[in-house]
């Protein structure tokens, strides 16, 4: 039943989409004062249809309707309800339906929120957004229909991969998608504003909330992805420069650049072309992110076996959109009246431009590292991967100037400022950060060439951003986000510098020495729980002044036969003690990995702070309006 509902509502949505494209195109060419009410009505019908379609998929998952091929492939009657629901978007077909859902919901919200804007601009946004929506609808209906049926109806589903049953993994795709799809509105509106000729400060104010919304969701989405990798994968890290992680980071760099540029456009009416280029790039990166993850082209540890032919469609669709936007850009960019305003080299404008340069550099590095393997494989068939050292070598040295600029850039004034102002405050802060770094680095075992300036500068920036809370030069949201960012950099550096790990194969009762610690495997208890067998180990880690007990677990599922390791992590404000073990053979040896990870929790906290800053800015912006 729900299959028919889902399927037909998608067709209705497609018809609505085609109608809207034609109608809005006609309407833009005749000068009308107000948006035709039918257009909004039909958009809402379309949104409702897509919601119905999505709900029917979720229902099919909840009631385990195995006549639906997607449900059959990805669900199982024994799955807990929460994972049945999240399973509906955990697969290729469902995730695209979710993309579509967010696309149309965002468009509807846009139409409601943009009543004060001019009609041509609203019509054009509707047009561009409907082009994207129709593309996705056709893609879903042709290549990845979530409502394909199976006959005869199987009695049990195939999908019960326990590794994928994790709360952070279940909710992070939708949140990432909100971020990705939010960029589609930015893309459509900037093209629309370009054609309608109203790129300027008032448009910037209007678009800023969409940039903020996408940016906040993307930040949280990346955070949840890292948390999942840290807790569930048991590799003891939060970022692996894996292609699938990279494709979420690239739009983030772009959005961060855009977030800053939009402020310049709002306050100074500058960087018009650049804002549009950034909007187009951000959306293209989000689209190609979906393409790369879902096509199976990426040689990634996260990749799930998939059908590469689907990728061709998204790639050609992306290609069409990019060609379309570049053409529109070239034919309309003359309309951008450059309001001649003098800006001097030392000013907030330049500081933001510098921020953009750094973001673009970081973006290019990640982009090259991610697509070079694909490029080379197509070129001469050799298979390669680009390891973390590539990213570290290129990104870390550039962090030094970046941190310097970030420490004084935000406090510069618009138009013109002087650098000569000498502040005793800053000198004291600088000396303090040298002192702190000295005491920290004197204990470091690992020594890197750049660790000294990096640690000093990150502490300097941290103290400067704290100091900024006491003067009123900038908004509170910016202060919080910048403070969060400097805290993030400091935590990542300290974490990288002081983390250490110990690997061994141990038998029950054995003791091993690691640095000043003694690690002992006390016992392994075997129990039968629900649908798996649990092996719960008891480890103790001792040194002169501390004693920690850790109980990691190995779960052995029979259907399908899968082994998962549940790490045990003891978190304090200062450090994480991370222990995971694995079983290889029935010969009494357990494969053990112990990790000491300082300031781990601050990496999560600081990322949350960064997004809180964004949220605050969004709320405050809306307050002013009403």
């Amino acid at each position, binding site marked *: 039943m729900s299959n028919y509902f889902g399927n037909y509502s998608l067709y209705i949505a497609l018809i609505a989409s085609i109608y809207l494209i034609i109608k809005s195109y006609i309407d833009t060419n005749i000068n009308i004062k107000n948006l035709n009410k039918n257009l909004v009505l039909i958009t809402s019908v379309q949104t409702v249809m897509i919601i119905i379609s999505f709900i029917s998929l979720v229902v099919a998952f909840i009631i385990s309707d195995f006549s639906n091929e997607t449900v059959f492939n990805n669900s199982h009657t024994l799955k807990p309800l929460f994972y049945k629901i999240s399973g509906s978007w955990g697969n290729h077909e469902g995730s695209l339906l979710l993309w579509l859902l967010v696309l149309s919901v965002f468009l509807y919200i846009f139409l409601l929120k943009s009543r004060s804007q001019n009609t041509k601009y609203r019509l054009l946004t509707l047009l561009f957004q409907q082009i994207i929506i129709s593309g996705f609808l056709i893609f879903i209906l042709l290549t990845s229909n979530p409502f394909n049926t199976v006959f005869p109806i199987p009695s049990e589903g195939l999908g019960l991969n326990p590794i994928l049953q994790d709360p952070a993994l279940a909710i992070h795709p939708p949140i990432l998608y909100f971020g990705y799809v939010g960029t589609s509105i930015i893309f459509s509106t900037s093209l629309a504003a370009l054609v309608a000729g109203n790129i300027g400060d008032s448009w910037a104010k209007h678009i800023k909330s969409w940039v903020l919304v996408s940016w906040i969701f993307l930040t949280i989405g990346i955070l949840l992805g890292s948390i999942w990798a840290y807790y569930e994968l*048991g*590799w003891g890290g939060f970022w692996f420069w894996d292609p699938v992680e990279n494709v979420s980071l690239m739009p983030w760099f772009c959005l961060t650049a855009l977030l800053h540029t939009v402020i310049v456009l709002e306050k100074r009416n500058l960087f018009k072309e650049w804002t549009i280029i950034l909007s187009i790039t951000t959306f293209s990166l989000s689209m190609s992110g979906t393409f790369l993850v879902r096509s199976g082209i990426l*040689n990634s540890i996260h990749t*799930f076996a998939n059908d590469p032919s689907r990728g061709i469609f998204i790639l050609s669709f992306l290609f069409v959109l990019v060609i379309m936007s570049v053409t529109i850009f070239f034919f309309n960019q003359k309309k951008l009246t450059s309001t001649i305003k003098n800006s001097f080299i030392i000013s907030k404008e330049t500081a933001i431009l510098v921020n953009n340069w750094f973001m673009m550099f970081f973006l290019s590095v990640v982009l090259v590292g991610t697509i*070079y393997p694909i490029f080379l494989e197509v070129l001469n068939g050799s298979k*390669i991967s680009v390891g973390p050292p590539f990213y570290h070598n290129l990104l870390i040295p550039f962090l030094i100037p970046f941190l310097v600029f970030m420490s004084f850039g935000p406090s510069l004034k618009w138009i013109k400022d002087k650098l000569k102002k000498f502040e005793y405050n800053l000198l004291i802060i600088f000396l303090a950060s040298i002192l702190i770094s000295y005491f920290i680095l004197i204990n470091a075992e690992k020594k890197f060439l750049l660790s000294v300036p990096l640690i000093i500068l990150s502490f300097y920036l941290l103290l400067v951003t704290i100091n900024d809370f006491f003067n009123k030069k900038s908004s509170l949201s910016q202060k919080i986000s910048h403070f969060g960012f400097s805290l993030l950099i400091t935590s990542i550096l300290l974490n990288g510098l002081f983390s250490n790990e110990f*690997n061994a194969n141990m038998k029950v009762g054995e003791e091993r020495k690691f640095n000043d610690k003694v690690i002992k495997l006390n016992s392994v208890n075997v129990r039968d729980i629900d649908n798996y067998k649990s092996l719960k180990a008891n480890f103790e880690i001792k040194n002169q002044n501390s004693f920690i007990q850790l109980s990691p677990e190995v779960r052995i599922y029979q259907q399908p036969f899968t082994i998962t390791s549940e790490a045990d992590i003891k978190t304090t404000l200062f450090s994480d003690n991370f222990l995971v073990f694995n079983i290889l053979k029935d010969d009494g040896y357990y494969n053990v990995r112990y990790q000491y990870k300082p300031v781990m929790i601050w990496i999560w906290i600081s990322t949350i702070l960064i997004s809180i800053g964004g949220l605050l800015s969004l709320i405050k912006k809306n307050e002013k309006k009403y």
Partner: protein
Amino acid sequence: MYGKKVKFRALFIFLILISIILSIFLVTKSLEENVVYFKSPTDIKNFTEVKNTEKIRVGGMVKKNSIKINDKEIFFIITDFKNELLVNFTGSVPNLFEEGKGVVAEGILKDKSFLNADKILAKHDENYMPPEVSEALKNN
């Protein structure tokens, strides 16, 4: 003489060009140094020389009954059903590392039949198989 604005623009474009050239240079240099090639045991058999400074990735299946464990190390054999490679590894292995399943080991080749691995990767997907292996399986 050129006006102030033109000069400013010229300086701006010059700076952009310099930074683009600089980044291209740095990126390509770093890429050369940090690329890890993916090989199958058969590829390795056909090597003319073994570079024991360069990291490589070897993909294949873990041979049945080949895993051996002692206090510190794990030994196993990667096979593509034509040729085999002995791997030794110190560290923790992912859950999907199992005899008879696909695996990717990263490390330095000691000679044509022995890899000193420092990283073991296995895929999330239990049905995943390295492309080379599935090709080799099809051929047999």
